[in-house]
């Protein structure tokens, strides 16, 4: 059942505002000085957490749409994906500016030598072309097929992001493991759909 256009627009506004809550909380914490003893670490970690969360929420849209038979859900996907990019940018610039303060030598060494950054950096960079080509005009220019192929990079980025988190923590892997399990479920769903479609194609032929 498709909701009324007005209801859909209201839902979009609600999702948009909800997605800004983590940012608002960080901004309020920074203004009030309640981010704890190490506010830089807090900002970077929080932004990273929400980057991964929004990536997984974005990847949940398609399975939900199919399972619930609600095709209109796809309307939310672009906005959610852009929020993943937004928090990813906050996470990355937090590292670049607050943590390293443009110490390029240290940054390049990190990327080359620290496995969790070696994986994390490209995971973020891969999101840039996706954000750039997220407009209707770019979709038309690229054409559906090319656009779709390009946007499959989000899988690589999500897998890289989860590995980045797993390799960052030293011993208590409960949180990154939750992300890893969710991602496995979301990608597993797609694998099943794909295999079924192939089986059907084979039996039809």
């Amino acid at each position: 059942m498709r909701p009324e256009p007005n209801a859909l627009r209201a839902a979009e506004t609600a999702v948009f505002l909800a997605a800004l809550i983590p940012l608002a909380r960080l901004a309020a914490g920074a203004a009030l000085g309640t981010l704890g003893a190490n506010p830089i670490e807090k900002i970077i970690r929080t932004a990273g957490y929400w980057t991964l969360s929004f990536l997984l929420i974005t990847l949940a849209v398609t399975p939900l749409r199919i399972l619930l038979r609600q095709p209109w859900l796809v309307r939310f996907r672009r906005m959610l994906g852009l929020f993943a990019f937004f928090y990813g940018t906050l996470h990355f610039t937090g590292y670049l500016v607050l943590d390293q303060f443009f110490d390029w030598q240290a940054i390049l060494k990190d990327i080359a030598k620290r496995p969790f950054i070696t994986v994390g950096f490209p995971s973020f960079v891969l999101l840039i072309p996706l954000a750039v080509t997220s407009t209707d005009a770019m979709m038309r220019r690229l054409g559906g097929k090319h656009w779709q192929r390009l946007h499959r990079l989000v899988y690589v980025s999500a897998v890289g992001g989860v590995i980045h988190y797993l390799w960052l923590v030293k011993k208590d892997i409960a949180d990154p493991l939750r992300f890893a399990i969710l991602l496995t479920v979301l990608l597993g769903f797609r694998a099943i759909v794909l295999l079924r479609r192939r089986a059907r194609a084979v039996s039809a032929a």
Partner: protein
Amino acid sequence: MRKTSSPTIAPSEITPRDMYFGRRRFMQAAAGAAAAALLPRGLSAGENLPGVRTGAYVLPDALTPFEDVTHYNNFYEFGTDKETPSRTAGSLKTRPWTVSVEGEVQKPKVFDVDELLKVAPLEERIYRLRCVEGWSMVVPWVGFPLAELIKRVEPTGNAKFVEFITLHDPIQMPGQKSSVLDWPYREALRLDEAMHPLTLLVFGLYGEVLPNQNGAPVRMVVPWKYGFKSAKSIVRIRFVEQQPISTWTRAIPDEYGFYANVNPDVDHPRWSQAKERRLGEFFKRPTLMFNGYAEQVAHLYAGMDLRKFF
């Protein structure tokens, strides 16, 4: 042995007490101390430690605020988040408490912690604390050199290492319900490191009895090593012949070595150790060899390859 390398701190450089306590906190502490005086029990967190004198080792560095020192703690016994221990450590009962000093010593003894407190005069020392994760603090600890205790128990010729073992009680230490580390937490020093005058057996900070999240009632502080070497809430001190395996070394041997000396030239496998962020500062500062205590401790490691013995 050299007494000090840092210039003695001028009274004008010390943060005034009311700046780090605030009037309200001070009133609460005073009320608590008054109530405590009526009760037949030992000292507990928040009370002032009596008879503390200024020690030989004080830094001119600005102190990290009391609030940050007590609310940013790595203490996995109470949770793996740094903010968690300050919330969950209330379940730890620090009295009665005993510390068993045992192993290769002539005079093994089980000390009641209030008896242990009186083994030597308490002094306040301002030390840098460098965490292996790349942040640092400056903390006014209260305690006495571990060497004072070691002399009293008279190690035998077989004693080569000193092992420190933390309380193991998942009821009091809820983080121990998770098997994230092998409990109880163990740390160890070579005997000469343990005897070094900088090595402090600590009962308090900022003039007060240690808060639980900082390792009450008694902990180690070894200022030239990464923070995890300084065991907290100690119940056993064992003198042994073989080098013990520390908890973090057992957990991840290629990341956490036995020595764990602060060393800007030896990276942690997952990050550089060249710089650190002092809590409260924006720009990172260069990490100093042996956390700035090279003049006092470098001789302990003469001829050793610190890349191999990290």
